[in-house]
């Protein structure tokens, strides 16, 4: 009965200098299954994916991998060989050419035609055929740059399928998607399964495993903890296996006593490129309060907080009051001056200078604290940075480590450390736990609660409804640039938030 397994991994061990990333990993995947792979950051998921995708060739690891009963022996550091074998990987950030159309991207490098001349009509009809066959709702003539991240992933998947691929690895496909897009992706994966495609599915959102996977393999510290049938387990059990300890609560408890008003936003509107991105938003924030902002991606939630942070310059109308006084914020400099800090949505692009050392990232907005016009007191700087690194328990070999080499969760902690050092009165966090493992998430929640307790006003955007519900005192829901409602913690449910986030009817309530 061996042939029912499409992939067998046997005793795979992979070492990096000074560290063992995978240790004796063995598990099997049945043909036509969706197989979940989960573990905290650094558990070895990415390394395993890279081995399967051909990034690490055969001679860089020990152990054997059988695909369709044939041993995989990749020799080069490229994914071409894996694709030839029939294994394709879809990453969280699509790797496509934004200036080209869907069809051109799908057939990039394999354009149908003769003697170097492209047969455009065949390219487009083939594209259509693939999209229709797997029911992928993407306009085939659209330019990639006009599509959402979710749609771009569909194109990635279509590209893989067009190469007769029967084995897909999805590496955190949903971390950049909205709830609606996730739902759509789930449907699509079920569809692929019906068409005989096998998938490895990796995600930090454990609930997703229970919606689509057949089996789940849990990794911890480079070892397989267990492979279980999805129907025989639960989110709690999986978490316990992942972290190796009992994790009773997903969100820490806190008693909130919001103080006086610290921020008031009245009729805030933003127009960018002749489009109203934010329309007449009205809300307030109190000292020590956590205001959650929910909404689908593209609902204007990021635009709202970046507008408060001064990113839209003069394109903002409306009034902002800080501790009762009207203020004008035209740039990030202004915002920081008023004691507002922003942990941005995309830490790699907007939060960090990845090629620099950890301490330089932490001190970047705070250099004035330890410098005069002529020089920086580097030792005072290091001392201060060390304090914040310890407080946040940033796991880094030293402050001189290049930030790029830290794990995602620790990179996010560096961003948070940098803003904590500036002693903000208001801290805005835009999806702070995106792509971060359960353990680190919990630490970040604790940190946010501690700050709130110390009187910092907190605005927290989240893509995960549970997180918004678990953390916030009040929840503001946004849709198409408007605030469709602000709910108290006790009145809020997933259903009510989703209704406000998707419903056209405006049920505006504010007090």
């Amino acid at each position, binding site marked *: 009965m061996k042939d029912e397994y499409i992939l067998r991994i046997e005793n795979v061990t992979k070492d*990096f*200098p*000074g*560290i063992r990333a995978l240790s004796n990993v063995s598990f099997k995947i049945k043909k036509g299954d969706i197989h979940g792979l989960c573990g905290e950051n650094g558990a070895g998921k990415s390394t395993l994916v890279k081995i399967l995708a051909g990034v690490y060739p055969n001679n860089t690891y020990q152990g054997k991998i059988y695909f369709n009963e044939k041993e995989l022996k990749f020799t080069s*550091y490229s994914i071409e060989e894996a694709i030839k074998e029939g294994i394709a990987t879809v990453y969280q950030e699509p790797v496509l050419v934004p200036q080209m159309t869907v069809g051109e991207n799908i057939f990039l490098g394999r354009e149908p035609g003769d003697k170097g001349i492209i047969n455009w009509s065949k390219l487009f009809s083939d594209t259509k055929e693939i999209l229709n066959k797997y029911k992928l709702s993407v306009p085939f003539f659209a330019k990639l740059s006009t599509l959402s991240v979710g749609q771009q992933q569909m194109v990635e998947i279509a590209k893989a399928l067009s190469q007769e691929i029967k084995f897909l690895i999805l590496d955190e496909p949903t971390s950049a998607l909205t709830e609606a897009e996730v739902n759509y992706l789930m449907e699509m994966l079920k569809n692929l399964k019906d068409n005989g495609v096998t998938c490895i599915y990796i995600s930090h959102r454990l609930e997703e495993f229970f919606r689509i996977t057949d089996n789940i393999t849990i990794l911890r510290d480079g070892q397989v903890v267990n492979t279980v049938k999805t129907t025989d387990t639960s989110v709690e059990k999986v978490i316990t296996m992942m972290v190796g300890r009992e994790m009773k609560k997903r969100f820490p408890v806190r008693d909130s006593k919001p103080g006086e008003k610290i921020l008031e936003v009245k009729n805030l509107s933003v127009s960018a490129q002749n489009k109203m991105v934010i329309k007449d938003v009205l809300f307030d924030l109190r000292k020590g309060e956590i205001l959650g902002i929910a909404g689908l991606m593209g609902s204007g939630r990021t635009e709202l907080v970046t507008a408060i*942070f001064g*990113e839209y310059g003069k394109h903002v109308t409306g009034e902002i009051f800080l501790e009762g006084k009207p203020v004008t914020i035209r*740039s*990030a*400099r202004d*915002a*920081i*001056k008023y004691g507002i800090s*922003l942990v*941005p949505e995309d830490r790699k*692009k*907007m*939060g*960090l*200078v*990845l*090629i*620099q050392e950890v301490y*330089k990232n932490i*001190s*970047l*907005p705070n*250099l*004035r604290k330890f*410098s005069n016009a*002529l*020089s*920086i*007191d*580097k*030792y*005072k700087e*290091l*001392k201060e940075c060390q304090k914040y690194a310890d407080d946040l328990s940033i*796991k880094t*070999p*030293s402050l*001189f*480590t*290049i930030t790029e080499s830290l794990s995602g969760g620790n990179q996010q902690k560096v961003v948070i450390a*940098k803003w904590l050092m500036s002693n903000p009165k208001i801290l805005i966090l835009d999806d702070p736990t995106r792509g971060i493992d359960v353990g680190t998430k919990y630490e970040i929640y604790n940190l946010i609660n501690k700050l709130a307790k110390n009187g910092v006003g907190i605005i927290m955007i989240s893509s995960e409804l549970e997180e918004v519900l678990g953390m916030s005192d009040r929840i503001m829901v946004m849709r198409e640039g408007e605030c469709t409602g602000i709910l108290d913690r006790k009145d809020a449910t997933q259903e009510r938030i989703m209704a406000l986030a998707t419903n056209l009817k405006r049920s505006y309530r504010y007090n």
Partner: protein
Amino acid sequence: MKQLNFIDKIKKIKIDIRAYTLIFALIVIWLLFGSLTGGVFLSSRNFSNLLRQMTIISFLAIGMTPVIITGNIDLSVGSMTGFISVIAAYLQAILLPTFLPGLFPALSVELLGIFSTIITIIICLLLGLLIGMGQGYIIAYGGVPAFIVTLGGMLILRGGLLAVAQGKTIVPIEDSLRVMAQGYLTKYPGIIIAVIAIIILFLVTLQSRTKKTQYGLKIKPLSYDLVVTSLFSAIVLGFVLVMNSYRGVQIPVLIMAIIAVMVTYLTNNTRFGRHIYAVGGNKEATKLSGINVQAVVLKTYALMGLLCGVSGIILTGYVAAGTTSGGMNYELSAIGGCVMGGTSLMGGIGTVFGALMGTLLMTSIENGMSVMNMSVFWQYIVKGLILVLAVYVDVTSRKNKSL
């Protein structure tokens, strides 16, 4: 955590190796030319020449480093050096002699000459600063790509140079200006300066140790610090002694050393320096950290312009004239020196020291080949090949590191 510490150590060693590769390459090339020329290349006389040859380019390479670190480029520096050089000559030979004696009839010819040189220096530095700021403003605030703005600047300034020179070589130049570019420090002032530099080196080391203890940071054993500092002191003293065995330390080389130390300090120890690296590493994140990115870029061009001023003045003093071909292709040598010295054209990475080493390497090749009497065409070909090779080695070493 212990395991990770180990990785970090390996990485650190790797970075150090990268920094030393250049010095190693330099020594190999020196020895090679030394043996090919039967020791002539390594004589203190030739060594002195070599350093003078690199000074004018080195001012540009020092200024280019911050510009490239922020992810920009300046193609106009050669023309700007030439332009300012011609302006300096014009001031000294034509403009100032016509009215300076009339204004100060009481002064002697010698004093008038010094006065003329001082005015020339001030005007040339201001001119460089202004041109640099103008280009920087268009790049930073106008949003025009640096490549285009400075390409335009290169043509405009070359045109300006020709307009001022009118096809002629402008002479004569005051002695006081020529001394700045051709003069030597006599034996004892050279040694005194070396001693002062050594004292400063020791003081800085000791101060950093007290500071570290004050903030409770780990310090290396005193003996280690002393050995390292002594080593650097020996290099400084050795350099001065070698120079003294010919005709002494050259004044332009001293100016270069002072400027190099100043700009190194600027990039390593000031907010502005930090901002330069941050802008080059990630512009968006830097802006969101409340830093005025545009002002940072403008300032790097202002500094570049100022150093073009220095370079132009020294060029005039060295040639003892203003010539129409002054500064031709200097921008390429300066950029080549920076890149060779490990400055990344992608931005965010680079050091002044590296740029100097890169320039020294390029000049050594040039000098060695001319000492060997090889044709000029070979010099171009070899320099080109070595530049590409150096960057290739750099790129591959980086790739291996990331794996």
